[in-house]
């Protein structure tokens, strides 16, 4: 699983959950500040990512996932 594959998968999830255009979901973008993902939508993103890549993303880890790149790195390292 390449980082690019994970980015594309994550972009599809963020689009499904919050309607953010796929092309806006880039590694340097922050979920809250740039993509306007609220805390409830973030829970949905995490659930969908867990299902897609078979990872467990604990709540205490979620707060460290500030940017899309943070999430891609975590999923890449733990899936």
């Amino acid at each position, binding site marked *: 699983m390449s980082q690019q594959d994970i980015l594309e998968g994550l972009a599809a999830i963020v689009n499904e959950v*919050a309607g953010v255009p796929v092309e806006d979901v880039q590694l340097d973008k922050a979920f809250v500040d740039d993509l306007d993902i609220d805390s409830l939508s973030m829970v949905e993103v995490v659930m969908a990512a867990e299902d897609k890549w078979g990872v467990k993303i604990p709540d205490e880890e979620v707060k460290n996932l500030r940017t899309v790149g943070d999430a891609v790195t975590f999923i890449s390292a733990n899936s």
Partner: protein
Amino acid sequence: MTREVVVTGMGMTTPLGGDVASTWSALLAGTSGISTITEEWVLEQPCHIAGFMAVDPTEVLDRVETRRMDRSQQAALVAAREAWADAGAPEMDLDRLGTVIATGIGGVTSLLNAHDTLRERGASRISPHLVTMIMPNGPAAIVGLELGARAGVHTPVSACASGAEAISYAARMIQEGRADVVVAGGTEAVICDLTMAGFAAMRALSTRNDDPQTASRPYDVDRDGFVMGEGAGVVVLESREHAKARGATIHGVYGGAGLTSDGHHIAQPDPEGRGASRAILAAISDAGLTPADIVHINAHATSTPQGDIAEFVAIRAALGSDADSTVVTGTKSMTGHLLGGAGAIESIFTILTIRDRVVPPTANLTNMDPAIDLDVATSPRPLPAGDIAALNNSFGFGGHDVALVFRSN
């Protein structure tokens, strides 16, 4: 002197159409919105028929919006957007804008779907939107958020009288000076195996499965229960001075409300219709009118054997011989029974009846119940010119009685 309340916007989505215009024309044509449920679970149940929204809200709303909302909330939002646009989307002080949207039951289908998820996939897979999808105040809150309303967001719950109670509550907010504009109505979308089983267990539903479009037949001797419908109706109520100042189109005038309770039984109507007749008289009095002024009644008329009789008794008790000169109709014969949405869509029908001076027919009334002595329209009936007033009745399990009066000027 309380402030006068007028109707400046209307919106709905019903088994007859996705908006007011299409629903109203289907209603005047006597069209039924009832069909056979095609899902397999109906085969285990006595009732196989219902009135689904003619235009599914997911076809109208944005995909991301719909996945966060229960179907009843989606319907309310569709109706509210139409009503708000119809009112001219007034630019106003949002501290003076309120919403009152009722539901009889709430987000039951979302609750059941989530329960399936819980059982099949575990607690960690429950949507973070579940709670706001199932809470009964969800539709009012969603509409309030959409418009930025800050005068108050409320949700009266009185089963099948909820939609009418919401309109009376909204009018009171304006009369008392809490708000200048209130978006008000009711919504329901609970056609699923569990709720149908529950109403069937009460023997409340029609089982005329072989002929869905004639199953809802208020006042007919062969009526055998109500047919469940889904959808929402929303009105924009406004103080007359506020409407006048912005040059709004006034569709009709809110006259008054009467709210009582039976104190009789949790689900059976009082056979003497005492609570209902007091509600009717209170509404007429609140409107500053007398029974002789009521030219039309949009009746609750659910097509249950007992309910239609009890309402007839109540109308007779309240209006006496003046009931002879009142044209009654039961529009649930075409829409089915929208439960918490019923009082709202039927208030809109009442307003349209007054505005267009035509009473929509009661469909499927082929053999009038000889025990019911009312002038029921079976084809569209004209109403007289001049100042007229009409009544909309709504009753709910729990013994709730709500009557609303609307006027032409």
